[in-house]
Structures are given as structure tokens and as C-alpha cells.
């Protein structure tokens, strides 16, 4: 840890105010920054087992996603050295890896079996073929729908629906009087919220953010078609206040039985089928994310992964932790203690070969969805970037945030799709120019 030499005068000086955390054996303590999602919170509960096995103490810094990203980004760009292990996403991993800010994970142990990691995950977390972050759990997107409502209306959901089918079913199933909305989709501004969904819709409609010379394509007819489709669909069949709904808001709506369909992260499946929190737990079906006949489905690809910042002075301990947390053994340990439904999904192929896990209703659809996404070739026409629902370039956070706000304003009825796209188009060109891509 960074504090291991920090003794002598300052420690004495600070002793009055500092807590017991100035523990002597510094090398055996690592600080792990993580996001406050269920699977990570569960992992914290098993920390003692890791410490028992290895003698390494773990300090947790658990933060909400936006705060976490702000914290770790500042720390990594200034070389602050606050954390030995960071929970980062598929967006950060290839960028930071390529810049040498992360320790390459190319010498993982034999028993870790790096080849067991699902291929799309591995591709998305690597830069130039080197893995820089180990996936803790991964997700794609898929359709979750209410089998009871579909049966009632006499509609049958195919396994691989088209957008046309989804839009039609959503409109037919909308019953405002009963507070049932045909479809719930993300509308809340944010590059990880509405932009994730909208980018995948655009991908499936044959649109792309930039051409191979990094010229903005947001003004293309494909983009207009995608944005208009999304806007109209939510206006006709979406919940009130859709422009403010992110993952959580839609989850709550679906669990309360207010959505006939919901296209979102595959990890949501375990929440909506959990009778403890979901009122519709026993009538949820799953289908692949829709397409528009262009050969690309609206699947995104995301992983929360563990990475080690370059320059940590506890690299070995950090590596042991990363291996432990993303190993097959960890999955088995959780399965044994809490059942297969509670293991972190989407990271390892072997999980989907486990007979017990295959019985879980959404296991197969999750795997098919993940395998349908290709971070190296996400669009119909070629693009110069990697990443499915984002461009893996440092500027994307800023671009995605601004664009997300334009589309949310569109959804809130403050502007038309044409106006939103015109602004995004201009902004994108300006950013590409300023960043020196073209």
C-alpha cells in the first residue's frame, strides 16, 4: 500500500487524529474501490475467506457508480495511488490499458484458466490483445417480457424478434387505465444510461457514430430513423416521465407490473424473477434484443471488471485478489453458500456449462445475448473505434453525456429528433476536431 513507508514523524504527529488504519504490515493490505451493486456487495461478505487463505487484508471503498468513476478516474490520471484494485468498466479498460495505466494481466496462473473467460468479454477488456481487467460479471441486453400479458393479448414473442414486432406489441399492450405500459426503456441522460440503449438501437438500424475518418454520422438518415423510432415508441407505449428513467427506475416499474416489455441489462433478469422483490416474478419471459433486418442486433456488452493501476506497491497482493474474485472457485463458493442464482454471471464460459446453472430460466438467453455482441465490429458499416454501446475513446464520456442530455430533452418533448441530432452532430464534429482525430 502507498502508506507502507509513511511512518516516523508524520505517523507520530498524526497519531492523535488518525485511526488504527496505520497498520504496521502495510504490504499485506490492499485497498479495493468498487461499485455498490449487489454482486460486489456480496463479494465483500466473503472478504474474510480471502484474508484467511492469503493473509492479505482488504479495505473496501464502496461507492455509487458515478462517484466511483469520478474517484478512480481522477486517481488514475494524477497517479494518486489511492487504490490497489479498481472496479472499472469495459469502457475504461482498453483506454487505460493502452496508455500503460493498468498492470497487464498476461501472467495469470494456470489454474485461473484465462481462456475460460467469454470471448466477447475478453475482447472488450483487452487492448492490442493484452488483457487489462478481469471480468467480475458481465452483461448484454435482452428483452424481458410479461408472459401473462402476452398470453392474454394472444401475442407470441419469438425468440429473435424484430423492432417492428416489438413496437407493434408494445402499442397493443399499452393500457394507460391499468397503468400498464407496453415498453419501458432507458431515457435518463447519461452515457451509461440512455446512450447505451440508443447506441445499440442505432447500431441495429445501420447507423454509426462516426465514419472511418472520424466524421460525425449523427446527421445520417439511419440515425434519424433510429431516434425517431425510439422517440415515437416511448411516446406511444412508454411510462410517464420516461426521460428520467434509468436502469433502476425501469426495474422498479417492471417489478411492480407496470411494463409489458423491458429491454435492458441481462443482469436485471435475476431481479425481476426474484419473488422477494418482484410482483411479477413467475411470469417473466426472455428474448434476444431486437434487430431491424440489418444483421446487427441491439445487444450491448458491458462488464464490471477488476483492474490493477500501474504503480501500486502491492501488485502481487492485488493480483492474487483479482484472481480470487474472478475465479471459477469464487463462483462455486457463492453457489454453494447462496445458490446458483446468486453467482456473478456473464464472465466465464464454464458457468454456462454447469448443469445446475443451465436450469436457471435466463441463463441461456444471457449467454446468447453476450455472444451476439461484438465489440470489435459493432455496426453495419465499419467504424474506427471499438466498443458496442460506446466509443472506447477518452472523449466519449463527455460526448455521451452531452448527447444523452439532448436525447433526454427530446424525449421530454422539449425538442424534435431532428433538432437533437443536429446539435449532437455539430457537437460530435467539434469534439473530434478539438481532440485531433481529424
Amino acid at each position, binding site marked *: 500500500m502507498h502508506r507502507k513507508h509513511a511512518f516516523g514523524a508524520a505517523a507520530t504527529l498524526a497519531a492523535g487524529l488518525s485511526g488504527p488504519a496505520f497498520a504496521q504490515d502495510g504490504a499485506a493490505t490492499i485497498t479495493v474501490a468498487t461499485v455498490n451493486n449487489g454482486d460486489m456487495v456480496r463479494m465483500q461478505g466473503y472478504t474474510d475467506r480471502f484474508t484467511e487463505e492469503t493473509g492479505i487484508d482488504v479495505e473496501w471503498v464502496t461507492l455509487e457508480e*458515478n462517484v466511483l468513476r*469520478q474517484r478512480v*478516474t*481522477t486517481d488514475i*490520471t*494524477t497517479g494518486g495511488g489511492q487504490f490497489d484494485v479498481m472496479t472499472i468498466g469495459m469502457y475504461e479498460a482498453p*483506454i487505460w490499458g493502452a*496508455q500503460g495505466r493498468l498492470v497487464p494481466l498476461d501472467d495469470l496462473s494456470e489454474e485461473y484458466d484465462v481462456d475460460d473467460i467469454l470471448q466477447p468479454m475478453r475482447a472488450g477488456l483487452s487492448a492490442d490483445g493484452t488483457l487489462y481487467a478481469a471480468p467480475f460479471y458481465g452483461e448484454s441486453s435482452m428483452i424481458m417480457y410479461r408472459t401473462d400479458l402476452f398470453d392474454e393479448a394472444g401475442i407470441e414473442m419469438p425468440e429473435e424478434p424484430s423492432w417492428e414486432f416489438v413496437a407493434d406489441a408494445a402499442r397493443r399492450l399499452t393500457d394507460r387505465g391499468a397503468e400498464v405500459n407496453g415498453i419501458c426503456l432507458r431515457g435518463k*441522460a*447519461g452515457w451509461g444510461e440512455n446512450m447505451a440503449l440508443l447506441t445499440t438501437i442505432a447500431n441495429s438500424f445501420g447507423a454509426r457514430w462516426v465514419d472511418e475518418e472520424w466524421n460525425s454520422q449523427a446527421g445520417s438518415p439511419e440515425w434519424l430513423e433510429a431516434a425517431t423510432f425510439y422517440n415515437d415508441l416511448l411516446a406511444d407505449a412508454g*411510462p*410517464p*416521465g420516461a*426521460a*428520467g428513467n434509468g436502469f433502476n*427506475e425501469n426495474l*422498479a*416499474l417492471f417489478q*411492480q407490473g*407496470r411494463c409489458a416489455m423491458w429491454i435492458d441489462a441481462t443482469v436485471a433478469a435475476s431481479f425481476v424473477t426474484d419473488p422477494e422483490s418482484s410482483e411479477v416474478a413467475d411470469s417473466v419471459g426472455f428474448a434476444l434484443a431486437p434487430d431491424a433486418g440489418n444483421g446487427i442486433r441491439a445487444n450491448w456488452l458491458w462488464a464490471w471488471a477488476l483492474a490493477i493501476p500501474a504503480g501500486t506497491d502491492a501488485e502481487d497482493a492485488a493480483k492474487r485478489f483479482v484472481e480470487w474474485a474472478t475465479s471459477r472457485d469464487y463462483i462455486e463458493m457463492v453457489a454453494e453458500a447462496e445458490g446458483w442464482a446468486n453467482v456473478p454471471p456473464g464472465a466465464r464460459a464454464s458457468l454456462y456449462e454447469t448443469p445446475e446453472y443451465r436450469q436457471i430460466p435466463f441463463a441461456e438467453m444471457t449467454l446468447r445475448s453476450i455472444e451476439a455482441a461484438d465489440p470489435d465490429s459493432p455496426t453495419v458499416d465499419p467504424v474506427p473505434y471499438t466498443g458496442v454501446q460506446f466509443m472506447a475513446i*477518452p*472523449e466519449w*464520456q*463527455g*460526448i455521451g*453525456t*452531452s448527447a*444523452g*442530455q439532448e436525447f*433526454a*430533452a427530446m*424525449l*421530454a418533448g*422539449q425538442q424534435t429528433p431532428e433538432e437533437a441530432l443536429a*446539435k449532437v452532430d455539430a*457537437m460530435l464534429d467539434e469534439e473530434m476536431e*478539438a*481532440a485531433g482525430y481529424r
Partner: protein
Amino acid sequence: MATKASRTAARLMMAPAVTLLLGWMLVPLVMTLYFSFADYRPLRNVFEPWAGFGNYERFVTSSAFWPSVWTTLVLVGAVLAITVVLGILLAMLLDQPIWGRGAVRILVISPFFVMPTVSALVWKNMMLDPVNGVFSHVARLLGAQPYDFLTQAPLPSIVLIVSWQWLPFATLILLTAVQSLDREQLEAAEMDGAPPLARFRYLVLPHLARAITIVILIQTIFLLSIFAEIFVTTGGSFGTRTLTYLVFQRVLEAQNVGLGSAGGILAVLLANVVAIFLMRIVGRNLDA
């Protein structure tokens, strides 16, 4: 009574505070100024120490700049107006003989003790949420359609949250002032048949002027740097992006420290313009 010796002593006594604040102001300010003229984008490993006025030019000409200045002024102005007006009314009400005044006062000042992050989270998730918020429950109870505050009326919603936090502060200061009113004078005016509004206009308001000045001055300082309330609720969308928030987006979300630093310097300038403006208007009341 100010002898030369006591002046020296006074300077010595002020020295620690002045030196500390000078350091706290100058060190970050100088570094920010330095960055604001640099092309500093740490995520791309770019650091060009001299980029001229490029950052300033980009920041000011960006389509987000003027709306953010306007949003800042509207937010600060609206919160000030609401807290001062309601604060006066509330202070005068609390000055009346009422049963359980102590308990009422405790309830009224409570929001002041709540962390901004917590109050933003509570308002967003439990009050304003269009599905599960208390307001939408009430709307449904009355047979109305739930209203989606944070997307349909985003800025007013944030004004509401911030006003809720600062109303206690205004009320407390104004209450102390109301309580020090000259009762006899008021009663005399009432005997003379002066209508309530006139009494308020010519006796109460002038007496409160100084307290109002203080409320405006202190609140402005805090309101200009509002951050958590926007970060938690709208993330700066739907025209709720203040200048402070725009700086945050440039520095942290877009990781363009040079551009953000230029924005930071501009924010300081704006704050000082507002402060000077305030001093001109209300400063006469403040013979500090």
C-alpha cells in the same frame, strides 16, 4: 483606544487567519490559472504548457456557456427570492404567540442539518419520483395524473430542493431580527390606524433590511457553488447545468483539465461580479 502597540498586536492576531486564507486562495488559484492556459488532457497524456487563450475561447463560445450562466443566475435568484420572502413570513408567524413554539421551531430548522447529498437523494427518490414519490401518490389520490417534476420542471424542482434546505437559515436570522422589533412603536402605529400592510412596509421591512442583506450575502456564496443537488437529481440535463456544473463536466467527465480550469477562472469572475453587484445594492446595509 487604538494605540500603535495595540495595532501591532491586532495585526499579529490576524496574521494566522489571513496567511492561511491567502495560501488557500493563491495556491489553487495560481495552479488553476496555469492549467487554464495549458492544453491539459490527462486521459490522453496530453500536456502542452502553453495553449494561449484557446481554452477560454472554447469555453465561452461553447453553446453550453451562456445558458449555464443564465441557469446559475436564475437558480440563485429564485432560491434567494423564495427563502427571503417565505423566511420573513415564517419568521413573523413564529413570532406570534403560538402553542408549542419550541417544537415548531425545531421542526422548521431541521432541514438545515441535512447533508445536501441526502436531501437531494430523498427529494429525488421519495418526493418527486413520478411513480413512487409522495407527490405522485398525492396526485393519484386527488385523481390527477402524476407529474414528472425532474424532467418536466427540472430547474423549479432543484430550486424547490435548495430552497427547502436554506429556508431554515433565512428564517432563523430573520426571526432574531423580527423579535428585536420595537413593539411600542408598532402598537402606536396600530393605534393610529395604520393598516397592516403599511405597518409592514414602513416599520417592519426597514428594520429587517440588515438581516435580509446578511441572508442574501451568505446564501449567495453557498448557492453559487451548488453541486450535489444537481449531480444527484438531473446530472445537469434539461437546462439545469449551472456554471459550476459545466466546469465539473469539462474537468471530470470530459477530462479536459485545461478547458475546465478556464471555466473555473470564469466562474470566479462571475462570482465576483455578482458579489460586487450585491455589495452595491445591499452593501449600504452592511456597515461592517
